């Protein structure tokens, strides 16, 4: 099931299936096929934080809603 990263559930692991055209995302490690673990989502329009294998990244809501992910089972 495809959903936006913004709607992903904390604690679960996902594969990124679509990213918007925003260069910093792929150079920092968020590209199609990358595996991420959802960490937290911040209230009131805040960002989401995800962890990659060895680092943590926070992504603002306006981008997170445009990144699509699929849950890893």
């Amino acid at each position, binding site marked *: 099931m495809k959903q936006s990263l913004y709607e992903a559930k904390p604690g679960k692991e996902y594969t990124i299936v679509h990213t918007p055209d*925003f*260069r*910093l*995302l*792929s*150079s*920092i*490690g968020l*590209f*199609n*096929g*990358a595996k991420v673990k959802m*960490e*937290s989502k*911040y*209230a*009131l*329009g*805040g*960002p989401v*934080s995800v962890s*990659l*294998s*060895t*680092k*943590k*990244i*926070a*992504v*603002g*809501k*306006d*981008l997170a809603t445009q990144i699509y992910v699929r849950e890893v089972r």
Partner: protein
Amino acid sequence: MSRCHELQEDREVLELSDKILLMGPPNVGKSVFFSELTNIHVVSSNYAGTTVSYMKGTVTIDGRQYNLLDVPGTYALAATSLAEEVALRFLASNPRAILFVLNAADLEGSIKLLLEVLEFNIPVVGALNLADVANRKGMEIDVPALSRELGIAIVPTVAVKRQGLAELVQELAQVLAGEAAASGERSRVRGSDVEYWQRAKEITSKVMRWTNGSPSRLDRLGDAMLKPWPGIPLAALVILLSIGVVVGAGKALRAVLLLPLVNQGIVPLFEALFSRLPLPEVVHNVLIGEFGIFRISFEWILALVMPYVLLFQLVFSFLEDSGILPRIAVLFDNIMRKLGVQGGSLINIMLGYGCAVPAIIGTRTATTRKERLIVTTIVCFAVPCISQTGALFSLLAAYSYWLVLGVLLTGLLVFVLVSILTSRLLKGTVDPLVIEIPNLLIPERRAYFKKFFIRAKHFLVDAEGPMLMAVMIAAILAETGLLTGISTVLKPLVSGWLGLPPEASMSLILGIIRREMSVAPLLALDLTSLQVFVGAVVSLIYLPCMSVFAIVAKEFGAKVAVAITAGTTFTALFLGGLLNHLIRFALSLV
């Protein structure tokens, strides 16, 4: 404008011979390598993008001098940001070698960038830094295997403790001795980010394995600070504690040590000295009168400004090195987003509570010009530098802590209004937050104090001149009678509109030079609570100081600098007068 200027600076640097480039991803400690290897001191912090410009120093290897250039940290080399453009220009400028710093705790990300760098056919030596953090997190790296996979020498280092630096220089010497001049041209067209990431993952899986790392208490605290609960209360606690330490300890230092020293020690000494000299009265007064140079330079600079500035540096350096700031940026991104910017801007704004100049230079890390302009305007309008905060606090707290709170709230209100207005009015966009969250660290003592002393020295060197200038102008104006004339001219504004005594015109004059100098003269006047409040609000919003004007003009052009200056001056005087009349009116009703 700023681009052209930077290119000019570049050319000199690019034409240097015998260059060694210091490269690596953001926040890996490149600046520490730079200051340890060259003895030119650079300030480094625990968040991405401290090196928004670049630094040059010399390093001696095998008896020969080389120019070491600290290249801004980037995640890629694709010319899509100012920092990446700078890095690419350096790579194409015929360097002799590259010292590449890898983050052992994020090997994959480091290898990804290194793979891009290796395509330029320049000899590279790798430093595997932050090995201590990697160990703590349970990562075990096979260094010889990593070196084989990449085809370059790799030296494990802990730069803040100087570990591995001697070996690193040896490896550099070997590379420099053996190599012919490097081409510096890319061997092929740049691949896609995904391609580099996949290769980096392959290499990482061969050379790194996870052991049973035991996340330290610090790692758990770092994770906790990132969650809304307990992150937000913890962040609030950290901010309050920081303010408490700076303001509380500053006040104590002033009361217990500095004021007695100045009033009972230094000033009487000069009084005695000057009274023995056969000086004309005017000269005597300019030197040691009520506003004499040798009285107020100590009262204002030593006892009023210094304690707060030094304490702020001490506290802020800790916040920077620990990795707390990016966590605050993440936690408050929602509020900042509603104000038209993004959480990352908050790091520069907080820097502005120390001094606006580094805050404005720091906006170079912002991805759009609009964001840079908004943050710069906020800092100029609503963020008092620490010297001014100290002075304001001394002025207001003598009356009532309610006044402190009132001015604080007025400042926040102006902050919010300026942010909302500029983000609506300026053309362009502000990019959403994308930020790497560094590991929480306890700053290593040596590096921490080194940074503190460098900053304190910079402050003394940069600020002393303008402060002494302000003091001299104050002394001459007050002691020669010139002030009376100026006060008469400005009386309708200062007294009629703002409701302050005519002598307060001194504040408006000195405020042109430095922000805290618009507060200091008010300390000597006998003011009512309302007058103190109005004076403080005017001084808070009034002109950014001369250095800030210069840096805004350099970064954005003279037009922007003039516009911001006119805006702050008008707003300060308008709001000050408005408050004066409104409060008077309200009081007359009671």
